[in-house]
């Protein structure tokens, strides 16, 4: 029998339907793969018993003819999503021991469809990072290594555990979240498919909040089709989230027709960065050729405010984070640090000093500063206005084109420690992903090639608000044209 952990979600779905395999078998294989992959540090909590229970329920559903796309499919859940009675800490020390009394809507949607939970996945603390090096549980290792090297690379972030588990064959798919690129950049670093839908498509209820006007759930899978299946499962209106939008969820898989003839694909000139590796430019150029070969029309477009997206993001996101993270005070959940003879404020200050890591503290401090008296207009209000201009750039572009094609990240995965001492160098990793996050539009990253060292590179597809179908369709065409069959050598088992 073939290794069940190599199956795609779509193939497993068909085999489950035919009765050739059971969810129990599929889940057992994955539970074993999770245990064998400790070297990746992708999981921060494993739930094997729960997984087997859920698998048996899924098998009963399938037997009763109630199979859906995700029924019986074992998945990993980013530690950012509240899972009832199960470890949920956004990989922060300050949420020590927190086991929520409620379930996030995104995960509830998966369980309602019969999906199986393997455990909780590592991430940058509170999703603040681009390399998974800020996790309280230690960094995740990228399953990919440079050819002939045993040096470890970062998996990207913040959804580092999500991508490593999927690329490392210890989850068929994983939930992830994107605030400034936390789905797309790690997908590019690991040769996986990541999609961030339109802001408002997935409920934020039960998602640990980082920057509420930007946070959006999405998925990591090994193929575009799997992404379409899983995204459909987690999407949908939820009255428990005030920014959830009441829109029908299309059949995303049906969008994968492979037909983009006559479609207009925009190439933003501002994304040609000085000093960008030639391999990234070459891959982008290759992507343009693939679009033309598939019958699409390629159009040069301008997104004039692109260079201001990162500084805008580093005002808006920390400002919202400083408010959202005010709730961690040692009173209602998680860590509490007492000061001998101290008062309540001493307790707050000691708890937050001990509970937050350096990057989280840095962002709370920036956020507090830009919102403080006398600076609000100069920084926060200014950033909100520039955000409007960035969004307007996209609106104008989408009057001319149906989708936008760019590289996902300005480099391949980098080695540990390479950028962790320089916050701005780390922030620059998100230069191509942040603008779409600020505008709230859907975007994906598709594995499209490798660099000279054999490390994966991704192309990013952006679409109009609510048009995930075009993003998926174009992604599918890239996937097909790229024929990306490279796999990481399995060193971690």
């Amino acid at each position: 029998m073939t290794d069940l952990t190599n199956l795609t979600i779509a193939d497993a779905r068909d085999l489950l339907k035919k009765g050739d395999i059971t969810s129990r078998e599929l889940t057992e294989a994955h539970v074993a793969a999770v245990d064998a992959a400790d070297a990746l540090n992708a999981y921060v909590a494993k739930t094997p018993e729960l997984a087997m229970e859920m698998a048996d329920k899924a098998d009963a559903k399938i037997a009763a003819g109630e199979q859906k796309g995700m029924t019986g499919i074992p998945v990993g859940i980013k530690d950012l999503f509240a899972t009832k009675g199960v470890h949920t800490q956004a990989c922060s020390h300050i949420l020590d021991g927190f086991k929520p009394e409620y379930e996030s809507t995104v995960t509830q949607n998966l369980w309602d469809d019969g999906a199986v939970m393997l455990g909780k996945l590592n991430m940058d603390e509170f999703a603040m990072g681009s390399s998974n090096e800020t996790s309280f549980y230690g960094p995740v290792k990228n399953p990919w290594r440079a050819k002939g090297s045993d040096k470890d690379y970062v998996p990207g972030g913040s959804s580092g555990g999500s991508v490593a588990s999927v690329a490392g064959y210890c989850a068929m798919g994983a939930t992830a979240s994107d605030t400034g690129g936390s789905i797309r950049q790690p997908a590019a670093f690991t040769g996986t498919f990541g999609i961030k839908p339109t802001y408002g498509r997935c409920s934020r209820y039960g998602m640990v909040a980082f920057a509420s006007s930007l946070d959006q759930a999405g998925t990591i899978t090994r193929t575009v089709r799997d992404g379409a299946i899983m995204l459909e499962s987690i999407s949908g209106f939820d009255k428990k989230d005030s920014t959830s939008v009441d829109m029908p969820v299309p059949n995303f898989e049906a969008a994968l027709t492979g037909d983009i003839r006559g479609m207009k694909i925009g190439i933003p000139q501002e994304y040609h960065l000085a000093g960008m590796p030639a391999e990234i430019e070459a891959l982008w150029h290759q992507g343009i050729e693939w679009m033309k070969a598939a019958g699409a029309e390629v159009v040069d477009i301008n997104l004039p405010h692109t260079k201001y997206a990162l500084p805008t993001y580093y005002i808006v996101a920390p400002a919202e984070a400083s408010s959202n993270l005010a709730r961690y005070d040692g009173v209602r959940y998680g860590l509490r640090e007492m000061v001998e003879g101290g008062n309540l404020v001493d307790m707050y200050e000691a708890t937050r000093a001990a509970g937050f890591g350096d990057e989280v503290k840095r962002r709370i401090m920036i956020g507090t500063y830009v919102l403080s008296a006398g600076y609000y207009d100069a920084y926060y209000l200014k950033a909100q206005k520039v955000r409007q201009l960035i969004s307007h750039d996209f609106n104008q572009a989408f009057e001319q084109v149906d989708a936008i094609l760019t590289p996902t990240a300005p480099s391949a995965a980098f080695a540990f420690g390479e950028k962790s001492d320089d916050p701005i160098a780390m922030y620059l990793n998100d230069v191509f992903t942040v603008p779409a996050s600020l505008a709230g539009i859907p975007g994906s990253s598709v594995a499209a090639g490798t660099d000279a060292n054999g490390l994966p590179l991704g192309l990013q597809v952006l679409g109009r608000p609510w048009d995930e179908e075009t993003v998926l369709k174009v992604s599918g065409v890239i996937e097909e044209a790229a024929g990306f069959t490279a796999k990481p050598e399995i060193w971690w088992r």
Partner: protein
Amino acid sequence: MSDIDKATVAKIARLARIRIEDDKLEPLAGELNGIMGWIEQLNEVNTDDIAPMASVVNAKLRWREDVVNDGDKQDSVLKNAPRAEYGFFAVPKVIE
């Protein structure tokens, strides 16, 4: 230009309720100045007559009936508390 000095860092830390040791104030001031200096490039952008964007979702917030639709979950609410007594969160004594 932003000029975050030691005293400013101490003030922000107090506002953010994060205790920061004295010897960390100076390095943190350097880091924050670096980041804020980089952010200053936004001043190049003309934003006269541009409305600030607070949310990408333009829809008006939904209204609902003003009725109780959840509750009676005292045990659940207190379940994760570091300290709870008599059905309340317990904190160090506050005397003003």
